[in-house]
């Protein structure tokens, strides 16, 4: 056991010293927004000199993907060393030296499902920040019913011919390559005709179009594929077995959304409502809003306790699967409720959407954007379906 008084584990000590000496001060603390991260890729520029220094130092150390094998550009750290490094980075509040979908999502899937040649090629490019990846799952007609996707990849002997389109591709316009789900068989069960494919976005026949949301600008794009030729070796895993990879990857997506969600400044609902409404004798000056706010604050506190409990159950070796199934649903419903309370309390002040107007302008956008929370990553209704079927065992009609 490590003894914090008698001296640290040598790896921890060494890591701590190295991080303290090498992590630039501006690379520590809260991530301001997505522009405060280095994403890599062909068009990827460093947001600042410190970002460049930080990336290069960590890269030289092998700590871009610390736990990946060295032959894939990783640091070859053991699980224990990796955990220590993460703890020490958290201790100094170090920003990630490279933030990318390749690192967080595609990488883990390739490690598990790709051929040796694919691993060596693609994983090294991810670690070296040469390629920026985006994800192509949803389609205009395949949202909640993801397995109903129609983008087709036909076997033309020496290549696949891809036709169709993807939607809700985050940063599709900035990415170099896309990993997608394509239909390679239209017969039988729809899940059994899906394959996992890697496509160069510079291929002839590809195009992207930004999506403007009700809240204004967004990182989402639509991506179009018109007779795009894709080499046969870009198929990952077995033909028609892509659904398994997709499901595996979705768990990493949820983890990443959890992480990046933190970049949005947390709003203090109580403070905002109090400032807007004012109080008399210590009581919020609107009894109806006060009741709604109390109910919200109670549920938020209990939800936080439930997250604590899930962690404790896992630590105690109890199955906490049933618990984690409710987090997406309840967390997003609470967020939407918080924005409704803020809008209600702020009145016409929160309706101004001119960014230069005043301090309230961002509220309108945050409110409008929050409506997507209960849709993206599986709608609230889909989450309730999952609970009814998988947890409660209610019959399918």
């Amino acid at each position: 056991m490590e003894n914090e008084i008698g001296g640290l584990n040598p790896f921890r000590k060494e890591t701590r010293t190295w991080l303290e000496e090498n992590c630039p001060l501006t690379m520590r603390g809260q991530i301001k927004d997505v522009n405060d991260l280095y994403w890599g890729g062909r068009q990827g520029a460093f947001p600042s000199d410190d970002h460049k220094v930080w990336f290069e130092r960590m890269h030289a150390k092998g700590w871009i993907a610390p736990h990946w094998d060295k032959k894939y550009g990783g640091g070859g750290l053991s699980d224990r060393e990796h955990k220590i490094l993460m703890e020490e980075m958290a201790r100094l509040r170090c920003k990630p030296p490279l933030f990318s979908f390749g690192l967080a999502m595609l990488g883990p899937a390739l490690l598990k499902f790709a051929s040796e040649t694919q691993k060596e090629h693609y994983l090294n490019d991810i670690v070296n920040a040469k390629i920026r990846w985006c994800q192509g799952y949803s389609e205009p007609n395949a949202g909640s019913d993801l397995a109903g996707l129609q983008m087709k990849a036909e076997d033309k002997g020496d290549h696949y011919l891809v036709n169709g389109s993807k939607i809700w591709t985050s940063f599709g316009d900035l990415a170099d390559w896309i990993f997608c789900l394509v239909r390679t068989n239209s017969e039988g069960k729809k899940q059994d005709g899906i394959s996992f494919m890697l496509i160069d976005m510079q291929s002839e026949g590809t195009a992207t179009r930004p999506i403007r949301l009700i809240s204004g600008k967004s990182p989402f794009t639509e991506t179009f594929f018109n007779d795009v030729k894709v080499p046969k070796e870009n198929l990952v895993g077995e033909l028609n077995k892509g659904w398994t990879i997709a499901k595996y990857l979705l768990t990493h997506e949820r983890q990443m959304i959890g992480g990046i969600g933190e970049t949005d400044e947390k709003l203090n609902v109580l403070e905002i409502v109090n400032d807007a409404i004012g109080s008399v004798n210590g009581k919020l000056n609107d009894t109806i809003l006060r009741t709604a706010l109390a109910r919200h604050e109670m549920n938020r506190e209990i939800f936080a306790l439930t997250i604590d409990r899930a962690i404790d159950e896992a630590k105690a070796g109890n199955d906490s699967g049933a618990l984690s199934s409710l987090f997406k649903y309840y967390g997003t419903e609470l967020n939407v409720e918080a924005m409704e309370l803020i809008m209600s309390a702020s009145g016409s002040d929160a309706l101004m959407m001119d960014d230069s107007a005043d301090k309230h302008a961002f509220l309108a956008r945050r409110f409008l954007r929050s409506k997507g929370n209960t849709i993206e990553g599986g709608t609230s209704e889909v989450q309730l379906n999952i609970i009814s079927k998988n947890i409660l065992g209610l019959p399918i009609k």
Partner: protein
Amino acid sequence: MLVINEEQKMLKASVRDFLAIQSPLAALRKLRDEKNSDGIDRQLWGGMCEMGLTGLTISEAFGGLDFGYLGLGLVLEETGRTLTASPLISTVLLSTTAINLAGSAAQKKALLPELARGQLIMALAHEEKAHHDPGHVATKAELRRDGYVLNGHKTFVLDGHIADKFIVVARTAGKVDDAKGIALFLVDATAKGLKVERTQMMDSRNAAKISFENVLVPKDQLMEAGDYDTLVKIFDIGCIGLAAEMLGSAQECFERTLAYLKERRQFGVPIGSFQALQHRAAKMFIDIELCKSVVIKALKAIDDGTPDLSRMASLAKAKLGETIKLVSNEAIQMHGGIGMTDDAEIGFFLKRGRVAQQTLGDYPYHLDRFARLRGF
């Protein structure tokens, strides 16, 4: 850690096994239908005492098990599942707590060993109107040469009709609603001038209306630390215990409803295959999971002596009150016509739920209190 340890798991399991045999829901129906004069099964209560349930929160020095409130909460959760009618709430959760917190050394020495052995049924007499209100005390205690003289009346005194002894909240000074001047007294059920009227409630349990007409209480029966703040703490602990009981009731009620959704067929399919019912069931599942977290946290807060006990108590009581209401209402609706019949057991959960959520403050009361404690 918001999980229970092995010892606590064993306690919970043994209580569950005991109640499954000794006190299934049918036992409550029997008590009701036989118009049992006690409203409780004394033999069952004897068994619960033998298991040591009366001594869970009493220290070993006084013959208890010193198991803590988390332990008592787990027991209450199980009696919530079977809707067992017993003096567990009046005597163990409320009165024993009051003596632990407010009793003098002599009072503890006299009463705690008896309570631990289960030889004493006690009731806390506080409420004077239809809504819980800790400061609302009109009952007067006037100091005379030979003791205190009590005058006034109480209502909703849980198990008041079978109590051997009462803890009475009365006022030695100040006006109604003043926090100052509140005191707690130990009063024998046989005291002259004390009248007890049994009130049978919706949940087939019993409370009492009590009146005091010049009841003389010896000076040494004034509870040493029985002031307003202590009273609030007794209620906070009571709220958390009731929340634990409601958690058991909500789970059992939900599980029974879920089973019915799978078994009841209409239009040629199980009604549980309809999405209109599935989503409502999923939402109840979520609420119950949230309830488990707040109940265990609040029970631990009692044992750990955390300073924000009042906020935790209101949080737990409000959430559980809201949830038992939702779950028992939905249970009746989802059972359909059969749920309205007295033959079905599901209605008992609605009835107990309503009484439990009203006891020591309903949902609006604790919502308001939570807001006040959070500073809005």
